[in-house]
């Protein structure tokens, strides 16, 4: 069973992502509604993957990625960015900070799955 942390401020989209992942059978998804919740949740179990939205209030996705990558305990966890097409610049910065890939909203289940599989290939 692989643990996935989903960081996204829209409850409805979070639920959809969790359902998609769990339908694949091998994932256990934990939801966080913002950066602070993500920080609280990270130490609670060994996560194999983090999927994070970029545009969130207070701590944005880029700041979360930077924190994860500079923390010995979490730096090897692959990260996927969820963003909207307009934020190309933000996508680039996310990849530059170490995210392995991104999906663009609105995305189809297959796109999410492809990005997830690619991110986990490295493990």
């Amino acid at each position: 069973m692989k643990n996935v942390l989903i960081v996204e401020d829209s409850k409805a989209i979070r639920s959809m992502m969790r359902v998609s992942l769990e339908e694949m059978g091998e994932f256990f998804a934990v939801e966080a509604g913002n950066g602070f919740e993500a920080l609280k949740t990270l130490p609670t179990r060994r996560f194999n993957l983090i999927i994070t939205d970029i545009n969130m209030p207070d701590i944005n996705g880029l700041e979360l990625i930077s924190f994860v990558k500079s923390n010995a305990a979490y730096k090897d966890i692959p990260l996927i960015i969820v963003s909207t097409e307009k934020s190309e610049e933000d996508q680039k910065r996310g990849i530059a900070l170490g995210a392995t890939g991104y999906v663009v909203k609105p995305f189809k289940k297959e796109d999410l799955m492809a990005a997830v599989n690619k991110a986990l290939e490295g493990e």
Partner: protein
Amino acid sequence: MKSDRSIKDFLAEAEDILETANQTMLSLESEQAAGRSAPDLVNGLFRAIHSFKGLAGMFGLKAPSELSHKLEFLLDEVRLGKTALSRDVLDVLFETVALLGRHVQQVGNKEQPEDIAAALDRIDGILKAKPSTAADRSILDQIEIDRGLLQVLTEYEEYRLKENIREHKNLFTIKALFELTDFEKGIKNLNDVLKKNAEIICTLPTAGAAAGGIGFTIVAGTAMGRDELMSAINMPKVSFDPITYVEGRKVEEQRAVSETGAIKSVSNTVRVDIYKLDGLMNVVGEMHLTKNIIGRIARELRSMHGFAGLSVDLHKAQRSLERKLNDLQEGILEVRMVPIGQIFTRLSQMVRKYAKEVGKEIDLHLSGEETELDKLMIEDLADPLMHLIRNAIDHGIELPEIRKQQGKPEHGVVKLAAFPKGNHVVITVEDDGAGIETKNILAKAVQKAVLPSDHGLDPETDRKEILDIIFLPGFTTRETVTEISGRGVGLDVVKRNVSKLSGMIDIDTETGMGTKFIITLPITLAIIKALVVEAGGEVFAVPLSAVLEIIQATHDQVETVETREVMAIRGDTIPLYRLTKAFKLTPKPSSNSFYLILVGLAERRLGIMVDGLRDQQEIVIKPLGKRISEIPGIAGATELGDRRGVVLVLDVESLIEGALKRSVVVSRQ
């Protein structure tokens, strides 16, 4: 993925987001009017539309997704300073959000979404008019800041940083350390107090002091100097490092002005599905029936030998159960109640838009926004209220030139008020316009064949009856079908909607002074107390809230005036209503006496004649099937828990209506 349940999720979240967007726009409008820029509000609005777009996209809703995408683009241009927030732009924002609101309703009603072509064009028009300026990265070179921090800024955060530099604000790198176990409170405190004194540009989590810790590095901009800021924050463990400007400029002006911070706080609320609350109310209603059965058993036991003591105990238990049920019921009712201010907000936006369209200046006064009403009823009120307000703006309020001639202020005043009155809520829509002339109503009524030309009504003495005519179907005061009455909506529909909520609508008007519509509604339609009566061998339930008095009378007291039966009660002539006649039942033969249930709402009275009284109890009014529910006089059905079966609940309001019409008008129905 598009099951009914998930569409409900979409609707709930979408409505929340748009409500936030609307409130933000209204705040933004007043800040603009006061000459203040409000980047927080613009960003808040951007975020809301961004969320809405993501949501609509994920649910495959093309029209709202496309429109919000465009709107989000516009808002991004505004928040990045590429498009100014002018009056025109604000108007387009309001209109587009209103259209998105309609899309959400259409999704909920499984209707086709409204066309977006015109809305898209309007936004394009604005975007074309403003040339976008190229981004200027070199501004960031003016400060000495850790390049690592710059890399984690989103495009928006970078823009805000540049703005702060352009305005020569004092910039600080603020570092705070917390324990991992309880950092949320600490960082929330720091954020709250920081937002009151500065603009937070970004928040970066970092490693903590030790293994179980976490840190935050915040970049903030403010007009305050370092010492002033530190004492304002008053958290000794937090470090403040000023970010120096490269040319050596560090503006230390202690401006008295403090930064405006965040907009709204999020309250601790839970979203509840109103239909689940309906289900709970049903359960409570059924518990009332069971409680009544227990009461009956207690009474029967009392008359049996040897069970007196037991019967008393059972009776006590029933009383206690009754109190608890009432508490529970009140609790659930409280949850269903929402302040009417919710629809007031929507209505005030509509007023802005509509007033502009017809070229009139309108001042909308709202009062009693905190007055609470059942959530389900509030939704059904929005349309009738909108219609009344549009009427006031369109027909009531005169054009500014005419008002000036009459010595009235050029701004027309429309007052929307709500206040509780016992078990009811009264909502009024008032304008200070031209008022309605009874003469004109009579003329129009004859012209539209709503009244025969020999109606015999006098404009002075028959005022009340004449005013009622405007609620008849087929009567509108304008020839042209404008957008308001576009779909054939007249005041008769307003009245029907109000009746469906078991309410009444009255009108007060004075020529040259204005018009006032008064809507009286019961607070909730859920569980009500009712009087159970018998007539012609059948049992009926009469809502207690409408019952004024119960009088025992004899048949010889009944008089007949112009084919209507009436009775004199303390000097007033009260029209009577025979249940047996209305439902074609055989009246009880022998008795000379009967009971008169005197009911009334607002100023109207009616005496319902029944053979006997049975009981007073709580009932849950259940709706009848669609066909039967349109019959005036019947509000629904209920069960009394005594094996009698279904009992009809009288709709007192429509009975009063029906009885008060003159036969002349009645024959036209």
